[in-house]
């Protein structure tokens, strides 16, 4: 969960983050190397003291900017200023449809009302908004209510339920928060679009890629951490290349090389009959068992449950 776990003015945290000038410099170099889409995420990007300087510095470069935020810092004035340099898309995460559930997750009193006010302020400026949630045990009962809430604002809504361990490796309560494999798959089956996609994939006899990195990471996407390291994706802290020291292009080459030379899928996954139903990727393996290749028991269960429904 990306919420404000550090105090907003945490000086050690702020010191370790790139300055607005550094972010803009990296943005320019990335554009020179062909970057088109850029996602600003966190934590909470609006906590950066140079947030507007960054937004306003990046916009003229011709980037399609996407902003992920929890919405709680978006007042009417903030929304007005965002509308001067509007992102291509803004996504706000809902943690619940009621104050009680939302704040049970965020643990910040008042955050629910602030989030709703933020949504209203952005819509008043006609900014392109999408609402989403990560479904947990605490908020699953409000999934439909969250969908309705988004509907009442007239904006799209998406829910995902694949909760991973913490990225920094610290102990987490994920096992208590995430739904069981069976619950996930039953919930997914209630979504007509997902259900149809699975049915069609089975009919087409689709096979998952033989590649370990089957995604765009290291091929056309990368991540830059708050302290300026370039990595494969938000969940994989490799290869920690330093674009501000060695230049964007060399850092990007390091990331590509890491992915190109990554170990192949484990023999177990290669031989697995349920692989078509399995979202395992190197990041999942890394977060759940510290490897880039090995099976993830939670996903094995999910894949089995999907098979029961779609290819019994």
């Amino acid at each position, binding site marked *: 969960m990306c919420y404000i776990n550090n105090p907003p003015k945490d000086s050690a945290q702020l010191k370790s983050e790139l300055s607005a000038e550094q972010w803009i410099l990296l943005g320019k170099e990335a554009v020179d190397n062909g970057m088109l889409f850029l996602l600003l995420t966190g934590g909470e990007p609006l906590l950066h003291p140079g947030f507007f300087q960054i937004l306003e510095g990046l916009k*003229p470069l011709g980037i399609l900017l996407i902003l992920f935020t929890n919405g709680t810092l978006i007042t009417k004035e903030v929304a007005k200023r965002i509308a001067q340099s*509007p992102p291509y898309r803004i996504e706000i995460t809902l943690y619940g449809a009621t104050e009680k559930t939302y704040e049970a997750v965020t643990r910040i009193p008042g955050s629910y009302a602030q989030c709703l006010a933020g949504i209203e302020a952005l819509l008043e400026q006609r900014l392109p908004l999408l609402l989403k949630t990560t479904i947990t045990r605490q908020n699953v009962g409000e999934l439909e209510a969250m969908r309705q809430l988004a509907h009442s604002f007239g904006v799209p809504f998406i829910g995902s339920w694949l909760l991973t361990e913490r990225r920094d490796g610290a102990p987490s309560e994920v096992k208590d928060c995430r739904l069981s494999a069976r619950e996930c798959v039953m919930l997914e089956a209630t979504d007509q679009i997902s259900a149809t996609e699975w049915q069609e994939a089975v009919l087409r006899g689709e096979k998952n890629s033989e590649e370990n990195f089957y995604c765009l990471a290291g091929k056309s996407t990368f991540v830059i951490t708050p302290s300026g390291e370039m990595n494969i994706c938000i969940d994989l802290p490799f290869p920690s290349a330093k674009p501000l020291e060695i230049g964007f292009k060399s850092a990007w080459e390091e990331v590509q090389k890491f992915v190109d030379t990554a170990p192949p899928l484990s023999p177990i996954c290669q031989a697995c009959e349920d692989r078509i139903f399995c979202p395992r990727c190197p990041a999942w393996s890394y977060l759940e068992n510290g490897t880039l290749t090995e099976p993830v028991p939670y996903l094995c269960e999910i894949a089995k449950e999907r098979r029961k429904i779609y290819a019994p």
Partner: protein
Amino acid sequence: MRRKVNFLLRKVGDLNILVPIGQEVLDLNAVITLNETGAYLWELLEEERSAEELAIALSEEFDVDIAQARIDVENFLKELRETGLVED
């Protein structure tokens, strides 16, 4: 007519993409791409041009007959007007 100033034409790989750099907001899923002739006309529209001037330039640059070039320019301008990307 001429193009609006607040869009930047970016060449990314084989694609010519128009990216808003002002206060324009695109639909959540819209990205405007131009083909090669569209990108050529867009560059010309940095300055005030008439449809006839564009058609002559297009016909010379891409070696198409002028009648065809006029049709292509009209179609292109129609789309630009509909999406509000040019000002008369």
